């Protein structure tokens, strides 16, 4: 085995920066930081460090840079692309101790927070002042704001409100060489220099470690309503999505689930979903009550035109939030069927959804796989999920082959290999196919400019 952190003195040097109680090098802790929420990828780190300030982060990075030790920044570890797995060993830098919401300003519509704040905590702090922080990924009760920015998370409201990048105004970040920089801030207009905040957003922890975020908020909508429509099959639901978007409505939420997903989520949440339906479309609007009513009518009509068998509206905010929380739980709920779920997030232009959905079903059939499909239909962000028995190695290989085809098709349809989960480890090999060689070469030069020794999250984006 490789030399341990203790034997090389790395652990002791890290303790000198963050304090003894904030470094873990015991085998047990290293095992528990070997994974995130991604199946099948793991890697044992040499040390786990919990810094409390930007200065401590800088101290850790200087030590790592000097020794050429990999550093993997991490929040709550809900990543779905292996982005927080230390597959090259080194230091896992956990930022959850930096968990203060420093400011929520209703005068400036701005929030300032540390990276380890959980997304729902920021949303609640904003809501307390009548404001909304729109990005709400499925893991919003667990995941951290820092992780959301690093991955440019999407969520259920992206169709109308955009994704995390649309809310990043400024960042404080520590470079792998230890310097602390700030880019942007609380200004809506600021073009002094490259927009490094936007560059770091979605950089998957490969360029710098963010230690403070300044985020844009919007006034909370007056009301919000959720409805649902059942369809005989996913194709009808997909057509309804196109029809809704062509009807002049910009819904806040437009999510769909196929029959496999409806069954799994009902088994967990017991909220009375019709498990005999072929597909479920969840639609929602927020804003002025009169506008909501008009838009709901239009969306319902679009659904009925495309063959919806039943259209219903949530009675109360509680029922609406139950429905949305159930939707967020689809992925883990699918594992009730089989313990291995391989989830991808191929995304296509919204006008190509029906085509893509049909293609996924063909691929599943051809490879004899059970693939449940759900996703953010309104923005073309699909989550085809293969549900497998991990002992069946043949099925695992078939699933990889199936996703190869699905990614290739997504690229052909002017889509992307990942809408919101990130490239991480597993999708790096598809990236060049999508971006081209020149683009990849530029990414590598950018990476080298930030991180000359290649210590930050090596083997992932930019490598």
């Amino acid at each position, binding site marked *: 085995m490789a030399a341990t952190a203790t034997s090389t003195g790395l652990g002791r040097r890290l303790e000198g920066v963050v304090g003894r109680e904030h470094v873990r090098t015991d085998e047990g802790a290293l095992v528990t930081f070997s994974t995130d*929420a991604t199946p099948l990828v793991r*890697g044992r780190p040499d040390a786990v460090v919990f810094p409390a300030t930007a200065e401590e982060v800088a101290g850790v990075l200087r030590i790592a840079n000097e020794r050429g030790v990999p550093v993997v920044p991490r929040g709550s570890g809900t990543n779905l692309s292996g982005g927080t797995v230390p597959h090259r060993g080194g230091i896992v830098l956990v930022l959850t101790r930096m968990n203060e919401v420093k400011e929520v300003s209703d005068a400036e519509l701005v929030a300032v927070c540390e990276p380890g704040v959980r997304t729902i905590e920021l949303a609640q702090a904003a809501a307390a002042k009548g404001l909304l922080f729109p990005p709400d990924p499925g893991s919003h009760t667990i995941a951290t704001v820092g992780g959301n920015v690093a991955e440019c998370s999407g969520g259920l409201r992206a169709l109308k409100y955009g994704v995390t990048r649309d809310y990043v105004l400024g960042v404080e970040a520590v470079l792998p060489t230890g310097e602390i920089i700030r880019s942007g801030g609380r200004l809506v207009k600021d073009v002094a220099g490259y927009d490094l905040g936007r560059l770091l957003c979605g950089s998957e922890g490969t360029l710098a470690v963010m230690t403070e975020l300044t985020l844009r908020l919007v006034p909370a909508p007056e009301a919000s309503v959720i409805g649902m429509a059942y369809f005989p099959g996913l194709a009808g639901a997909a057509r309804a999505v196109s029809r809704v978007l062509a009807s002049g409505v910009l819904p806040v939420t437009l999510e769909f689930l196929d029959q496999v997903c409806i069954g799994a989520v009902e088994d967990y949440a*017991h909220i009375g979903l019709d498990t005999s339906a072929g597909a479920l479309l969840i639609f929602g609007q927020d804003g002025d009550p009169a506008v909501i009513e008009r838009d709901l009518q239009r969306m319902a009509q679009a659904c009925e035109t495309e063959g919806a068998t039943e259209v*219903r*509206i949530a009675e109360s905010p509680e029922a609406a939030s139950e429905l949305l929380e159930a939707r967020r739980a689809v992925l883990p709920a699918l594992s009730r069927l089989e313990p291995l779920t391989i989830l991808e997030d191929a995304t296509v232009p919204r006008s190509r959804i029906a085509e893509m959905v049909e293609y996924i079903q063909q691929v599943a059939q051809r490879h004899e796989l059970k693939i449940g499909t759900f996703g953010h239909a309104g923005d073309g962000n699909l989550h085809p999920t293969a549900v497998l028995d991990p002992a069946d190695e043949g099925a695992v290989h078939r699933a990889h082959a199936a996703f190869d085809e699905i990614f290739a098709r997504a690229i052909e349809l002017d889509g992307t290999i990942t809408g919101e989960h990130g490239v991480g480890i597993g999708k790096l090999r598809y990236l060049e196919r999508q971006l081209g060689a020149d683009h990849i070469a530029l990414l590598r030069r950018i990476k080298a400019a930030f991180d000359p020794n290649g210590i930050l999250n090596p083997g992932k984006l930019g490598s």
Partner: protein
Amino acid sequence: MSTADIAPESVLERRGVFTPDLLDRCISCGFCLPACPTYALTGVETSSPRGRINLMRALETGLLADDDPTVRDESSFCLGCRACEPVCPAGVQYGALLEEWRDHMWKGRRRPWKVRPLLWVVDKPRRVRAMGIVRRHAGRGSEAPGPVNLMLGCFERVLYPRVSLDARELAAELAAPDDQGCCGALHAHNGEFGRGKELAEELGDALPGTIVTTSGGCAAHLASVLGPERVKEFSQWLVEREQPRAAPPEEPSLDRGGTRALGATPAETDDPRAAQAEPRDGAAAKPAGGRPRIGLQDSCHLRNGLGVWREPRELIARVGEYVELPSAAACCGAAGSYAIVRPKDSARVLDRHLDEIADADLDVIAVVNPGCYRQLQQGVKRRGLRTRVVHLAELLAGEK
């Protein structure tokens, strides 16, 4: 590719410590993290349900040894409250995994020494009876079992004999033969699952018919062995007795869980969900003239294992102003033998509850489990709070 050399657990050799189906179910999504009291204390993955399942997997494949200090410490640091279960979309049975873990880790000499005398005392019904002799409780040696029998408990009959007396006062049809031992929960949660099961079966033989217990923890363990039809927690039994054919609480009684057909008017508020939400708003409600302000400490296994939490709230709301504390559903740190095995951690877990009781200036905090009773009583005393700690049975009997 970088992932090729990394094999999933399932294709590695297994030692047979854990039931494969139980261990494979977790997909590491992390939905359990915010629900875990020890993760809240430490902020360290290793002390979370997901982290502990990764430790169990490493133990199962031999990646970590039985005597690994982290594995050993985490097996006892976990409260075993099972708050991670209802929030787990994948349906991981963490409580069952923990029992298997402790069964393996705490064999013989490796069991925490403080637990050993407790297990010894409750291992034989005659020892349990002997403990109870010093106090006057509801049990009568000569009494024959009836169709519905009150469980007297082991430590409850010594520490809180009033509870069984009040339960019988509220429900005269409860028989309470003295010839009954411990339910076995203490064994099951402390590395002797087999013996815990036997004791539950023996109690089932001693008390044929329905068993009613004033201890939420005992109810969950007994129900897991004897079946939920035969075992009822006291508040659950009282409420079900009034509404014999009530729909199971998890089933929404509207046709499609809280939705209306398009075009239907959204007026009717007889939505059961809205009604259930009411007590939660109790904290904000204005105190009604002179009624006591009463909070509740849920029993973890009663809530997380049996899904019983509405019933005690409903009963409390009849005798006072019910106040839902923010951490009412979270473990108070008693956690069976935890308060004895890890007193410092137990007190840290309790602190937040005491803060909330003080902030809400409660008149009464009601409990439905003897462990929580002792834990809160000691905490309230230590802080010098004016709040009274009472068992739900005592609270209801006092109002009669």
